[in-house]
């Protein structure tokens, strides 16, 4: 499997079919045994790192951390196809932090939402 092409930047769908985001990063584990894929990363400053590392570093210093990052362990990944299906509940995940924020603070307050 080509990790860059088939995993990175693919759409992630949770167990209930909810769009969680794209795979912004992939963690490769090097310790303990042979090198392997250990987790998918969604959200936080992960994406910014790929656009501009200096900017990402600056944001992390300002905010004191990577923001709302979601690490999905590789054993939760169920299927890799058009989308990546994960055995995970998106609703509480940090990947949807900003979705919830926009819903609760802005969109949800407009009548008829």
């Amino acid at each position, binding site marked *: 499997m080509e990790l860059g092409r088939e995993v990175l930047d693919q759409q992630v769908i949770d167990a209930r079919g909810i769009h969680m985001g794209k795979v912004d990063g992939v963690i490769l584990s090097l*310790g303990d045994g042979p090198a392997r894929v250990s987790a998918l990363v969604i959200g936080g400053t992960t994406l910014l790192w790929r656009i501009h590392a200096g900017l990402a570093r600056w944001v992390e210093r300002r905010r004191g951390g990577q923001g709302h990052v979601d690490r999905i362990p590789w054993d939760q990944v169920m299927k890799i196809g058009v989308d990546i299906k994960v055995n995970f509940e998106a609703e509480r995940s940090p990947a949807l932090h900003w979705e919830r924020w926009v819903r609760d603070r802005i969109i949800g307050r407009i009548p008829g939402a």
Partner: protein
Amino acid sequence: MSAPQEIRLERLLGKLVLDAAGWPVGRIEEVLAQPEGDAYLLTHVVIGPDSRLAQWLAAAHQLPTLRALGLSRRPSIRKVPWTWLDLTDPDKPRLHRAVLGDQGGAAH
């Protein structure tokens, strides 16, 4: 100094790789993995051209029209085993051996 416990795929892609003698081999284009049991083990790294122009020509190679017009070039790609990669400093990946002269650098 030993290699870190974990690294980021997205930060590894695009990094310039030097061989054991310090010569640039190319940029990391892809990491290949294979399922084994529940895990996906890393098997190979694909190393592509390191110059901008060669990258553009390789991208243009995906369009048949440009290919027919001769405005592209098949990228020179090497596929090397993952274990050859020395990630002691993940920002400066190196190979454990010298590959210039193409020994072992199988065509993709």
